[in-house]
């Protein structure tokens, strides 16, 4: 059972490690985000594989979203999603009022946002349809 403090420090170090080794500028910033997304994608993929190994396939999109908001979010971020909204046309807005990875921020706030966003695309491998995620934080 790995401790939360250790995980958070590892996560922070990964984010700052990626940005430290990059130069300034838009292109580099884009590369860093891609690196973080790739790492997050890999993590999410592994998690989803374990979650869904013994369970049946999801019935529909809403089933997936419920799974993400409850089980997946609880495991990764230690709590459920606070609010889920949809326009019933494929757009879902997940709201987390106390996002675990950002509660101990120091400098580089925008970097941490990107890193946390990374874990999310993973869930979409459960279904073949692609999805994009956007993060806003207060």
């Amino acid at each position, binding site marked *: 059972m*790995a401790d939360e403090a250790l995980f958070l420090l*590892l996560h922070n170090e*990964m984010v700052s490690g990626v940005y430290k080794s990059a130069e300034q500028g838009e292109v580099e910033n884009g590369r860093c985000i891609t*690196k973080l997304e790739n*790492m997050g994608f890999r993590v999410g993929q592994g998690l989803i594989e374990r*979650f869904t190994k013994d369970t049946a396939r999801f019935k529909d999109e809403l089933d997936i979203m419920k799974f993400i908001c409850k089980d997946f979010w609880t495991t990764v971020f230690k709590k459920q999603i606070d609010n889920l909204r949809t326009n019933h046309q494929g757009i879902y807005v997940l709201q987390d009022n106390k996002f675990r990875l950002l509660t101990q921020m120091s400098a580089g706030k925008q970097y941490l946002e990107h890193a946390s966003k990374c874990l999310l695309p993973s869930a979409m491998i459960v279904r073949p349809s692609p999805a994009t995620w956007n993060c806003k934080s207060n």
Partner: protein
Amino acid sequence: HFVWGTNGKKGLLKTSSELFTLTYGALVTQLCKDYENDEDVNKQLDKMGFNIGVRLIEDFLARSNVGRCHDFRETADVIAKVAFKMYLGITPSITNWSPAGDEFSLILENNPLVDFVELPDNHSSLIYSNLLCGVLRGALEMVQMAVEAKFVQDTLKGDGVTEIRMRFIRRIEDNLPAGEE
């Protein structure tokens, strides 16, 4: 990238530990892409571990209530029985003390970092869990101890156990804070 096997673990309870293991695996995979040779990856893992260690020690001291250690033997006990337990949920055993009492080994029967991991053939020099050595070094430097930590056995490489050798170098006398590397 690294091969993930399965070990039949079920249920959601396991997965927050798996989150850490998977995150670490993603980091190592990325570093292997960024750096051409294993030695550089090992160095980077050590450096990152060091940066984590200098912060982790604060969390540890705040939560563990252990007092100042009077010698290296006490330090070894605290590392194995309190710190490893608190952060990785395992209690390594302490063995192979040097006659001078300045070196010992931590034996890890199982290493949570390597759950489900298999080393690909072209990374034989990679010290997969090298982050741990950096963490130990960084944490101990903040309590005025300069140490060396290195893996001498590794289950990932076919050894029966994982063994970290810890060596006390010297007490750090000046009060300059350790900088980030």
